[in-house]
């Protein structure tokens, strides 16, 4: 379970998160929607401690993420993260990309790590690309590679930061398909997205962010078909 309590975060004088409360249960898929700059991505980075926080607290399975004694490297293994810019490691093959963390972080033997990697690459449909370098893969394939890389650490949670925003339109589908697959397998997911149909179809709950405030949250049919917040109504009509 991931719990955010009265979470505050500022960049200099700019307050980007103004007291967020949110609980994500295991097995749940929560989509975060809202205009750019509304604080969605920052919220993800507060969960995996890529960002520090200025107030409140974040707990993952009862462990306070930003507390002094927390072993953040250990905690991050539970929190798979997929970025907008997929950040595949260009000097390693697909197999090596995925096997690296199991080998150096989880201390699997090279052979076991490669088995894990091969399994996860098949999982995302890249079973025939094991020895390809990222430069030989399309954007969609590289993003699936990034998903496989995160899955290889057997995370409890997956955080997606606009995983399809940097992709060519024709490549968006293959990545969304993998995300749907994960959701159907029961993965707990927090998904920052501009893909409204994905949010509607796959999420258990949709949360609308507005200028650092969680303005509206609920089941997708309520939030998206019957929005209460006037800004959300406007947002949904402009984004289609």
């Amino acid at each position, binding site marked *: 379970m991931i719990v955010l309590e009265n979470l505050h975060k500022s960049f200099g004088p700019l307050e980007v998160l103004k007291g967020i409360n949110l609980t994500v249960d295991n097995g749940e898929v929560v989509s975060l929607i809202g205009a750019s700059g509304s604080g969605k991505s920052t919220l993800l980075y507060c969960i995996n401690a890529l960002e520090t926080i200025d107030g409140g607290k974040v707990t993952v399975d009862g462990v306070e993420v930003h507390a002094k004694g927390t072993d953040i490297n250990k905690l991050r293994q539970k929190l798979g993260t997929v970025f907008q810019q997929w*950040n595949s490691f260009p*000097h390693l093959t697909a197999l090596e990309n995925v096997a*690296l963390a199991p080998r150096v972080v989880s201390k699997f033997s090279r052979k076991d790590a490669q088995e894990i990697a091969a399994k996860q690459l098949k999982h995302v449909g890249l079973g025939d690309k094991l020895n390809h*370098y990222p430069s030989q893969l399309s954007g969609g394939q590289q993003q699936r590679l990034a998903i496989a890389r995160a899955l290889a650490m057997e995370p409890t949670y997956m955080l997606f930061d606009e995983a399809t925003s940097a992709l060519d339109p024709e490549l968006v589908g293959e990545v969304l398909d993998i995300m749907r697959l994960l959701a159907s397998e029961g993965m707990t997911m927090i998904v920052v997205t501009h893909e409204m149909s994905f949010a509607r179809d796959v999420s258990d709950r949709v949360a609308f962010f507005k200028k650092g405030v969680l303005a509206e949250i609920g089941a997708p049919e309520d939030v998206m078909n019957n929005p209460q917040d006037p800004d959300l109504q406007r947002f949904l009509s402009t984004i289609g």
Partner: protein
Amino acid sequence: MDYQFHWRPVIQALPDLLKASLVTLQVSLIAMALGLMIGLVLYFFRASQLRVLRGFGSTWVEIARNTPSLFQIFVFYWGLGEFGIFLSSYTAVVAALTFNCAGYMAETYRGGFNAVNAGQDKAARTLGMTRFQSMRYVVLPQVLRAIYGPMTNQFTWVILASSLGMLAGLRELSGETQYFNSRTFRTFEFFAATAVIYYLIAKMALLLMALLGRPLFKAERAKS
């Protein structure tokens, strides 16, 4: 032209010249290896939050890059004597060339680190890697690829610059050549032969770097 070429003295001295080439090679290799390591430390110093480290790193780089290499050798060989520190020619030349290489490499590393996207480290850290692991397995291999060309240049530069060592009394290839020149007065022959030897050493160094670099550039070769 009245000048008669006499190559015999050169041929007779060849074993000694080749032995001196080994000194040249040794001095350059040590200076380059130490320079690579210290240069990386200086890069981190300059990127540090601590003002003292930043100041130290920047001062080193400024002096190393903006004063003549010859003066740097003189400082280590004669200058330190003023403070009661007496280095042998060999140590002084190695130290001075290391000082110089480290300064240049620190600046080269800076370019290399800038060339690696910040997202790489982030991605590594979110997989649970420590700062060190991310550096070791993800960032540095990419930095190394980015700086490989300039690093190779630096290596050939230090081989050629080590000839300045003769002015601090080191019997490396140039020093040895000068010694034979003063005994035989076959100036042109000796320095021509030595130039060829330098050329061959530099070529060998390039070949060595190309071979060492092969595993680094697997991904680039896969593209074509």
